[in-house]
């Protein structure tokens, strides 16, 4: 008798197994929605797929009066701009600090405790401060994402560099490397795949901070739209929006993985 832990599904059955829970979930939603609509044809909590398709048609064709863009496009551009800029600032900061703190013990002693303290502050708790200091415009939202992500990313990258084998640093020094060369030729390249990994993991919190900031004060954006239509109980808009956000997140993740595999083949099990 084979043990449960030894049964490894083939590729085809793996795809099938993976699709199964999703199909079950959709089916379950369909039945629940039908049941509610049988009770009350005007039900808004579990809209039918037809209603969602109609809503999706509306927000992909109608224009936002403020920007004269299609609603979904305007929201997506605004949100991705904030998220992208916030993540870029966080990544650049974390890369610089992680490299510095990881390779230079003096810098670690100086800045390590401060980074550790900042990292435990719940970012959304400082959102009011950001609104007061930076105003209600783009800057405060971008800052929330950057402040929310940069500290723990910095700690992760610092830990990674300090965890590189000491032999490598000794070897590099016997090959004549100075501190600068050690940082940019030994630590930095090995840090890059880890940076992308950290960025992939940060996407989740990044979206949370973005939607939180947009929910509180904004006039365009994916998070803004969801919280706006919530007032009218418009689940037929909220659900497709959530699906769209998930799709964007999956695409971003796949893109980062692709970049990492292409750029750093040695970190993914070799390859020339």
């Amino acid at each position, binding site marked *: 008798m084979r043990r449960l832990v030894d049964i490894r599904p083939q590729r085809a059955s793996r795809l099938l197994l993976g699709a199964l829970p999703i199909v079950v979930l959709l089916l379950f939603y369909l039945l629940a929605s039908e049941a509610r609509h049988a009770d009350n044809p005007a039900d808004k909590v579990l809209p039918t797929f037809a209603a969602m398709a109609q809503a999706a048609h509306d927000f992909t064709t109608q224009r936002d009066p403020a920007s004269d863009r299609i609603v979904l496009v305007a929201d997506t551009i605004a949100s991705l701009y904030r998220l992208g800029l916030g993540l870029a600032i966080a990544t650049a900061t974390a890369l610089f600090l992680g490299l510095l703190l990881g390779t230079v013990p003096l810098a670690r002693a100086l800045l390590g405790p401060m980074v550790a303290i900042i990292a435990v502050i719940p970012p959304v708790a400082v959102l009011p401060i950001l609104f007061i200091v930076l105003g209600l415009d783009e800057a405060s939202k971008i800052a929330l994402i950057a402040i929310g992500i940069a500290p723990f990313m910095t700690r992760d990258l610092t830990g990674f560099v300090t965890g590189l*084998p000491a*032999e*490598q640093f*000794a*070897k*590099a*020094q*016997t*090959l*004549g*490397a*100075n501190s*600068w*060369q050690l940082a*940019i*030729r*030994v630590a930095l*390249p*090995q840090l890059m795949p880890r940076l992308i990994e950290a960025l992939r993991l940060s996407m989740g919190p990044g979206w949370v901070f973005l939607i939180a900031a947009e929910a509180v004060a904004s006039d365009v954006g994916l998070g803004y739209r969801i919280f706006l239509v919530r007032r009218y109980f418009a689940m037929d808009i909220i659900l497709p929006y959530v699906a769209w956000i998930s799709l964007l997140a999956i695409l971003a993740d796949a893109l980062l993985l692709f970049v990492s595999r292409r750029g*750093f*083949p*040695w*970190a993914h*099990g*070799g*390859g*020339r």
Partner: protein
Amino acid sequence: MTALLELRDIWVEYGDKIVLERVSLQLAEGSFVAVVGPSGAGKSTFLRLVLGQEAPTRGQVLLDGRPMRAECGPDRGVVFQRYSVFPHLTALGNVLFGIECAQAPVAARLFGAKRRAARDLAVEMLAAVGLEHSLGVYPAQMSGGMQQRLAIAQALVKHPRILLLDEPFGALDPGIRLDMHALITRLWQEHGLTIVMVTHDIGEAFKLGTRVLAFDKRRHDPHAPHRFGATVTYDLSLDRKNPPPPALVADLSGRLLA
């Protein structure tokens, strides 16, 4: 002959724990020094001391008659048992690294004619260790033996005064190990190297070394095992033609296994 490396009454202590005591040595240029001893007898500490990763608590280390700073430098090359090569660089990149560090302090990379010259040098070094067909291969795709060949080429391109080997062949298959013995012997002769090799393998030590140093504790306090440090208990000069007396080898092996 003047000593290339001299240790004068070295003590290494970690708090209460004494690792090495009263180690005084002179290593001649061109010698192949094999260091043996049981685990915990300070072989690795001795190697780190010469490498400069560690400073002695007392005593002096002199390189070419001048006091050596406790810092790794290009005059002492090293090959560790593992993690000796950079996983993110190809074989060629690994060997180029040492040349690039010396010639490009800021960019740490070479371009144009300088790069071509450096590349020729690196390829020559890789050919010397038998890796001329693996220039573009990353370490993760190499066998253990190839990685150690690469590590040796990487170190030799800097022409170190001393090459330190820390159990370099310990993780290799017996057949590969024999190949590596032949390789390191050839390189030692051709390049006139001075080698200090730490090993667990007594046979390897006597086969390769022109001098075998055995580290062990002379005194032992069973109630305070850290009270006394290890020192050089045997110091044998060999020529590589005549084998050492079998009784002596048996005695040493017995001590090391005990």
